[in-house]
């Protein structure tokens, strides 16, 4: 997409056809605009499309497509803002429209890995700059003036010499007919007018007035409601069911068994699904379907273990799915056994000898439980299969990948599948695994009707795709001068190995050893906000706090010395962090928190981490009274390169802190005979307002480096900053998440 020639007009018709798709609840572009501006300019009579991202009305109103799904990361504001910057548009006259899945015009329409802004940076700017040049070329033709003499300013074209001035709308019809300019120049960062200043979320007004933005709000004439029943335990499958008490209930249109993904379908990394044999209940309204769902009795039987073929981003992989019903204890035994024989992922120097020669060895073991994503909007999807065409709409993170699975399952070519991306009521990784879209489509095909599939909260929380259960042992060797001479970690999980062998303090210690292991499970797991980092940061940064203390050093100074070494004389050549930027966020958090001058009555802890291309350091200030934690303040220091939309970026970092603290304190899911021990918010404890920090200050490193992601990086380190502050307050180290048990125990 960095080649401007790729910005074509080919699939505009496809886009406009979708926009006029006849939905009774509007998901058209009006849902995504700022109403007060529309009122000012009014609707244009005609739109002129300049490229895949931009159409301009004759009255000067500009529509910018937002390519990626929006689940709260603010991309629906920030991505169009980047286009508007290079277009030199007046943001006031811009309306934003959510693009559908359109692989001709857009690339990587994903939520994942905090990559939208980083990867979109050049394509979005190029789209804006190309359209701007088209408008300039049009004005040049119209005014008979050299293009080089024409400038733009906030939605206007200006030719100073001839005293000419026109708004973009006046040149749009001509511009739309001109050839696409090649090799347009992008602005210098110093010329930015929109980027770097805070702009309000384009959707806030719609959210606070209850507009139908989410997949679960979707409605079409004749649409039926569908729900599913899946096995109550992982390791079980459907044997038979009795629907005699359900099928004649009012409003019920169909109850049947169906298969979602076929067993022999070679699955991609995001085709993970726990249960493929399901019972569907379809009816007129949600409550009627819920009643019928309760009236069905089903029998379940144990699965026979099998091997699932998967395609892990191009590399074939086998997922072993064992027989049996797993429990907390059976998993523990398997994990302990696996931890005895880990595989080496990295070894520098001679760690065995370093530990032999050590004056002091510190060894600690950490654990973290399964987690459920708990998106506030329960899983859902709309699907309408008509013959060989599919229309679907709903919240998902990776539409392009799900489209493949859907096409294969239905035997309908990808070209005949339209996926409309609605706003996500949270994603956090869960909506990357869109098996419910396949389920919705299969149900629609069977019923020959448009349907909306809705999961109950219990269906979601008991349905798998969890954050893995993790375990790690860390060892540090200090010499008689309290220098860190050896570092050894063994990390593993059920079923995922969380190890990142090349992260800090790799590169900063001469004798370094990273080992990992994993245990197969019939529980399904998947990406969870900052996958693996959310555990590795938590435990590594807690451990370093303890090592610093054993070495008699301030925890920030201790890290700084290691980073100094990694910078001046790095060990190995595949360390995946920049020690200078890493030290930069520690410096910033140190100065902003007045580190070393802890306020009276407050205990504080520090932590820092690098993941998803961005750096984050945090200081947590708290008090503990009668086993109750009150978090007074959290300082965030973030280096994500240039910040596109600062207030929205702050919002995201504040959220990451609250989410991280909540998960560290309360988040857990355990299994007994394959069944989760909690299925709704009565038992799965979520952080609430009272437990949230009273204040969060977020500071960004001033940077002109191209922006990197922010959805995830501020989340992982806060677990450890909290643990380290809790230690200062209570004298207890916290090795096992969630901390609440040891806190009150």
């Amino acid at each position, binding site marked *: 997409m960095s080649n401007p020639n790729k910005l074509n007009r080919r699939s505009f018709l496809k886009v406009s056809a979708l926009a006029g798709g006849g939905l009774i609840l509007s998901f058209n572009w009006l849902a995504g605009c700022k109403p007060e501006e529309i009122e000012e300019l009014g609707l244009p009579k005609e739109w002129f499309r300049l490229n895949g991202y931009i159409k301009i009305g004759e009255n000067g109103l500009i529509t910018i497509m937002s390519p990626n799904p929006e689940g709260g990361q603010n991309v629906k504001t920030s991505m169009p803002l980047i286009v508007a910057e290079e277009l030199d548009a007046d943001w006031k006259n811009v309306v934003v429209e959510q693009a559908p899945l359109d692989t001709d015009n857009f690339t990587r329409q994903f939520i994942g890995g905090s990559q939208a802004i980083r990867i979109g940076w050049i394509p979005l700017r190029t789209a804006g700059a190309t359209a701007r040049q088209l408008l300039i070329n049009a004005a040049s033709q119209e005014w008979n003036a050299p293009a080089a003499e024409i400038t733009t300013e906030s939605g206007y074209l200006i030719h100073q010499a001839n005293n000419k001035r026109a708004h973009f709308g006046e040149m749009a019809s001509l511009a739309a007919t001109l050839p696409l300019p090649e090799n347009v120049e992008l602005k210098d960062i110093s010329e930015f007018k929109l980027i770097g200043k805070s702009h309000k979320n384009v959707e806030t007004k719609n959210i606070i007035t209850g507009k139908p933005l*989410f997949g679960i709000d979707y*409605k079409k004439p004749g649409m039926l409601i569908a729900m599913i029943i899946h096995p109550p335990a992982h390791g079980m499958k459907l044997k038979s069911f009795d629907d005699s008490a359900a099928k004649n209930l009012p409003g019920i249109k169909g109850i049947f068994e169906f298969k979602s993904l076929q067993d022999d379908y070679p699955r991609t990394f995001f085709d993970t699904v726990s249960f493929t044999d399901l019972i569907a209940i379809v009816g007129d309204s949600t409550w009627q379907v819920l009643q019928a769902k309760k009236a069905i009795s089903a029998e379940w039987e144990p699965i026979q273990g099998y091997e699932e073929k998967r395609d892990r981003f191009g590399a074939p992989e086998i997922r072993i799915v064992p027989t049996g019903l797993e429990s907390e204890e059976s998993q523990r035994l398997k994990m302990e056994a696996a931890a005895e024989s880990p595989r080496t992922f990295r070894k520098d120097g001679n760690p065995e000898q370093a530990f032999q020669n050590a004056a002091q060895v510190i060894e600690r073991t950490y654990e973290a439980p399964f987690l459920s994503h708990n998106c506030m909007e329960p899983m859902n999807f709309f699907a309408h299969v008509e013959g060989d065409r599919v229309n679907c709409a709903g919240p998902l993170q990776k539409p392009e990948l799900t489209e493949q699975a859907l096409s294969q399952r239905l035997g309908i070519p990808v070209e005949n599948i339209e996926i409309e991306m609605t706003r996500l009521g949270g994603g956090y990784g869960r909506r990357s695994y869109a098996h419910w879209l396949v389920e919705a489509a299969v149900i629609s095909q069977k019923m020959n009707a448009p349907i909306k599939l809705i999961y109950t909260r219990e269906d979601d929380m008991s349905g798998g795709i969890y954050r893995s259960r993790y375990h790690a042992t860390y060892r540090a060797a200090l010499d008689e001068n309290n220098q860190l001479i050896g570092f050894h970690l063994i990390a593993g999980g059920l079923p995922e190995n969380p190890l990142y062998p090349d992260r800090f303090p790799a590169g900063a210690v001469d004798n370094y050893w990273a080992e990992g292991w994993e245990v197969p499970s019939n529980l399904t797991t998947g990406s969870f906000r900052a996958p693996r980092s959310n555990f590795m940061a938590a435990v590594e940064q807690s451990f370093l706090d303890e090592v610093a203390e054993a070495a008699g050093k301030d925890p920030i100074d201790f890290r700084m010395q290691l980073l100094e070494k990694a910078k001046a004389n790095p060990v190995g050549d595949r360390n995946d962090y920049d020690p200078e930027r890493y030290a930069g966020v520690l410096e910033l958090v140190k100065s902003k928190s007045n580190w070393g001058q802890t306020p009276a009555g407050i205990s504080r802890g520090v932590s820092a981490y690098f993941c998803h291309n961005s750096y984050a350091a945090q200081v947590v200030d708290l008090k503990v009274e009668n086993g109750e934690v009150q978090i007074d303040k959290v300082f965030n220091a973030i280096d994500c390169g240039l910040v596109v939309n600062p207030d929205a970026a702050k919002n995201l970092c504040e959220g*990451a802190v609250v989410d991280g603290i909540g998960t560290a304190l309360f988040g857990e899911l355990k299994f007994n005979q394959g069944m989760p021990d909690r299925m709704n918010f009565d038992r799965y404890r979520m952080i609430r307002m009272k437990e949230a920090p009273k204040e969060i200050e977020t500071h960004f490193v001033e940077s002109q480096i191209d922006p990197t992601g922010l959805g995830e990086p501020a989340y992982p380190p806060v677990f450890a900053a909290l643990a380290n502050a809790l230690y200062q307050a209570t004298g207890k180290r916290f090795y096992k998440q969630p901390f609440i048990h040891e806190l009150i125990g």
Partner: protein
Amino acid sequence: MAQFNLNVNGKTQQVDVDPSTPLLWVLRDHLDLVGTKFGCGIAQCGACTIHLNGTAVRSCQLPVSAAEGAQITTIEGLSENGDHPVQQAWMEHDVPQCGYCQAGQIMTAAALLQQNPNPSDEEIENAMNGNICRCGTYLRIKAAVKTASQKL
């Protein structure tokens, strides 16, 4: 099935549903008022909060039969143009991330301020504690409630 006359956002609407149907699903499925959200179905998350005669209640636990005759207000009817002081404050603080819980948060906050126009921090926390925000926008919610209370 039975007929119910409901007063929703100042208008009388007739629905023909099972008397046990929670008001949440009547609003969403039968009256096309989808601003009120389904989150947990057991009154633990607050996403379905509406006003019943001015008091914040969980519509997922309120059978339609118990709502007849009452003044029901949903997020769509909180103000004419989305300009209730609480909504204005939400705009000012640009509170939402994913936005799914925010209608429930706003309805809880509006009911709180109706009863207690100048709540302390602790009173705000107590009133809002039943509303989960998975994205963690609690600080902005609290700040917005305070801003709204100053405007009332």
